């Protein structure tokens, strides 16, 4: 057997690798680690996934063309070829270009954790507790220096300044952050009368938010004693903590808005209730007044004095009617009388006498003489004429019809 030199073996390996078309032109996805940029400008790093790692080189002129500057933890798709660096006897991936967005190791871990916790039921809708309507004490886990806290306090102050805030400060970034977050949550658990809590961090790269994808943090949030609302990062970022919270909101401000009632809305409602009160009572009073008026009318209609007056009026009516009837009767009588008087007048002896007749009376007895047989010769008779009386003595009595009178 021939003994070969290191160089020869290495060259052989290199030749094998270089001859492989598969390795000559390929894309590899992975997460950048141990990234260094030499003073020469060449970049050295590794690409790794959950199980393996491959050494990478990117020459200065290629690295310069990248639109972003690669760093530790970036998930990338890298293009190049695999060859052997003979001096070190190491196979390497010679990267000529790469872009962000490949599925990195952390992303894989994220997905794996998410799947596991989801399978465990930690994200179940049935686990989500409703937030209290009227919170008094709000716990806040965030950095005591960050903009997140300022945003939260501003929103609370503006919306519902009646709450007390219990701050449990924590690191929210870096390798210490997950443990610190868990400790901060635990401290809050010791606070009495806490109604609701917020776990928040301002926006940043997914890398910055990574502590909120830590299993310990996620579990602490899921197991938290009172309803907890997450507000981590920006609109589009979802962390494992978000999935475990009772309510996920996109930012610290929205988290704060979610845990308290809206003061402006409350004021509007109070104003409405005030108007409602007035309307109800005005209406009530009006209704009572109406009822009162009705009863007053009823009462008045039953007033005995009113009755008496009515009776009196009825009597008056009767009297008036009676009086009218009597007057009418009198008038009728008078007319009748006048008529009779007229006909009577027509019969008066005077009028007869005026037509040439005379009335004859016995001057002694005053009896009216209607027949010659009542008279004897020598009787004294008074003969009444319209303008006077003739005293006479009868000298003759002649019987027979009076038709001789012309």
């Amino acid at each position, binding site marked *: 057997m021939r003994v070969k030199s290191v160089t020869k073996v290495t060259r052989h390996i290199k030749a094998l690798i270089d001859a492989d078309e598969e390795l000559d032109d390929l894309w590899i996805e992975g997460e950048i680690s141990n990234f260094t940029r030499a003073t020469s400008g060449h970049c050295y790093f590794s690409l790794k996934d959950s199980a393996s790692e491959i050494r990478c080189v990117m020459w200065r002129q290629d690295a310069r063309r990248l639109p972003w500057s690669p760093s530790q933890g970036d998930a990338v798709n890298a293009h190049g070829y695999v060859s052997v660096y003979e001096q070190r006897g190491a196979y390497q991936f010679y990267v000529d270009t790469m872009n962000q967005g490949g599925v990195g190791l952390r992303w894989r871990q994220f997905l794996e954790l998410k799947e596991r916790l989801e399978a465990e039921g930690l994200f179940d809708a049935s686990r989500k507790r409703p937030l209290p*309507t009227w919170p008094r004490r709000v716990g806040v886990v965030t950095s005591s220096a960050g903009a997140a806290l300022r945003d939260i306090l501003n929103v609370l*102050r503006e919306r519902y300044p009646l709450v*007390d805030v*219990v*701050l449990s*400060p924590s690191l929210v970034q870096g390798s210490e952050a997950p443990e610190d977050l868990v400790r901060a949550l635990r401290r809050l658990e010791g606070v009495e009368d806490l109604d609701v809590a917020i776990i928040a961090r301002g926006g940043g790269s997914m890398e910055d938010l990574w502590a909120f994808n830590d299993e310990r943090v996620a579990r602490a949030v899921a197991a938290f004693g009172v309803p907890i609302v997450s507000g981590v990062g920006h609109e589009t970022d979802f962390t494992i903590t978000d999935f475990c919270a009772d309510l996920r909101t996109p930012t610290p401000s929205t988290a704060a808005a979610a845990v308290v009632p809206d003061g402006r809305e409350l004021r509007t409602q109070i104003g409405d209730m005030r108007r409602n*009160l007035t309307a109800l009572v005005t209406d009530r009073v009006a209704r009572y007044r109406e009822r009162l008026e009705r009863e007053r009318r009823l009462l008045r209609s039953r007033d005995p004095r009113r009755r008496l007056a009515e009776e009196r009026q009825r009597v008056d009516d009767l009297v008036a009617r009676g009086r009218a009837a009597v007057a009418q009767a009198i008038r009728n009588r008078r007319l009748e009388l006048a008529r009779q008087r007229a006909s009577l007048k027509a019969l008066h002896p005077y009028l007869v006498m005026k037509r040439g007749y005379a009335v004859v009376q016995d001057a002694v007895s005053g009896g009216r003489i209607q027949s010659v047989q009542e008279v004897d010769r020598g009787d004294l008779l008074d003969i009444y004429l319209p303008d006077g009386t003739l005293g006479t003595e009868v000298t003759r009595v002649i019987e027979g019809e009076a038709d001789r009178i012309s």
Partner: protein
Amino acid sequence: MDKRELEALSFEDTYKRLEDIIHKLEEGTLSLDESVSLYEEGMQLAKHCDQKLDAAEIKITEVLSEMGDEIDREDVLI
């Protein structure tokens, strides 16, 4: 309700009492006297609610240990 009783009520209790009063008035089974006195109380409560919202200042404390010790953190008011 006198002033001290009113002061002792929390915002939400005041608000809930106000809602109760409205409900009672809406039922319309009360006497006129009761209605009027509830109205007066309601107006007082509404005013109190507004005042509470106007006057409130967030109180901030910081929790120091898992025993729940707290200190005031007014300096956080930015």
